[in-house]
């Protein structure tokens, strides 16, 4: 049995984790909605609680998407990378605001479609963004969702002006998976889980997660192939 087959047949532990993840969403939503209700009724901001629940919910969403996609054979299709980045920025905006972090979208030029899988790419970018936003410790930092051309590919990812953050976050995530060959006790689960999920999602979509640079900012990115279907038109 190869890895793809192995991924598609969920073990009972994975099934339990999946059910647990789905069930955890409801109490977290209760907390999130009750903070909003409290704010509306009493005029007192509970941003901290709201931010924590949003972070947990985004992670759970990405984890559930990962498992849902593992059950399918992913067909790569032309995907508009700029629209995926735009949607990711929209999803991350409330979390970023609560972490006092600015979200910037840098799509300079026209990129056309790339070969990918929209749901996998989108969930991966949300996971990467969540990891970077929650790892930025200083207020008023900027997290950029950006895309640029490399020699043969298109590079899309999440970048931060905080020096070394992307490298550190990726290292933590890979340590969780054992790919960095680091001893288990060296990893901190936060914000590694998001990177771990993004790593797997991108691998399923036929690409890889890596540290990359975008306009003097470093972060987590993936290399995407331009769609050849469009090139033939």
């Amino acid at each position, binding site marked *: 049995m190869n890895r793809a087959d192995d991924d598609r047949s969920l073990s009972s532990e994975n099934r339990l984790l999946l059910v647990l993840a789905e069930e955890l969403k*409801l109490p977290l939503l209760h907390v999130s*909605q009750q903070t*909003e209700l409290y704010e*509306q009724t009493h005029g007192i901001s509970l941003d901290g609680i709201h931010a924590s629940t949003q972070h947990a919910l985004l992670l*759970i*969403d990405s984890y*559930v998407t990962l498992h*849902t996609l593992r059950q399918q054979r992913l067909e790569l299709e032309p995907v508009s990378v700029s629209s995926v980045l735009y949607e990711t920025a929209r999803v991350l905006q409330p979390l970023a605001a609560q972490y006092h972090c600015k979200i910037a979208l840098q799509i300079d030029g026209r990129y056309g479609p790339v070969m990918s899988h929209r*749901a996998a790419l989108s969930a991966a970018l949300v996971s990467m963004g969540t990891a970077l936003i929650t790892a930025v410790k200083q207020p008023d930092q900027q997290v950029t969702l950006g895309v640029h051309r490399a020699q043969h590919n298109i590079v899309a990812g999440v970048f931060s002006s905080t020096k070394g953050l992307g490298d550190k976050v990726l290292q933590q995530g890979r340590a969780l998976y054992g790919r960095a060959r680091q001893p288990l006790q060296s990893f901190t689960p936060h914000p590694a889980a998001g990177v771990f999920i993004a790593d797997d999602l991108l691998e399923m979509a036929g690409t890889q997660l890596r540290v990359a640079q975008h306009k003097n900012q470093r972060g987590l990115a993936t290399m995407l192939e331009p769609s050849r279907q469009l090139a033939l038109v």
Partner: protein
Amino acid sequence: MRVLLIEPDQRTAHDTARFLSKTHAVRVAPDGHVAIQLIDANTPDVIVLEPAMPAHNGIEFLYELRSYEDLMSIPIIVFSTLSPEKFMLDEVRQTQLGVVQICEKSRTSLKRLQSILQEVVQTPA
């Protein structure tokens, strides 16, 4: 604006209804059966639906609603814990069933839902 919230989870139903009731007249139905009764008693301007319902599946409920001529024009906002691919509503089916917006609860705050309701009602059919 009259809003019918179809939500099987009691806690979510209570909090969502209370939040929205500052700006809208909200009634709550725990399932599709009660929802039809409430709609018959007083037709809402918009329906907010959690399709993950016990017994009467939410998508079946939408098909039922669209089979009644007098109710087929009520706009529906799907507000769900499930991601859209779980209940398999592609764009064509979405339009056929009168779903004007799909929102995941984990990514949509109650404040955002409130403004979506406003936008839906202001958009001409």
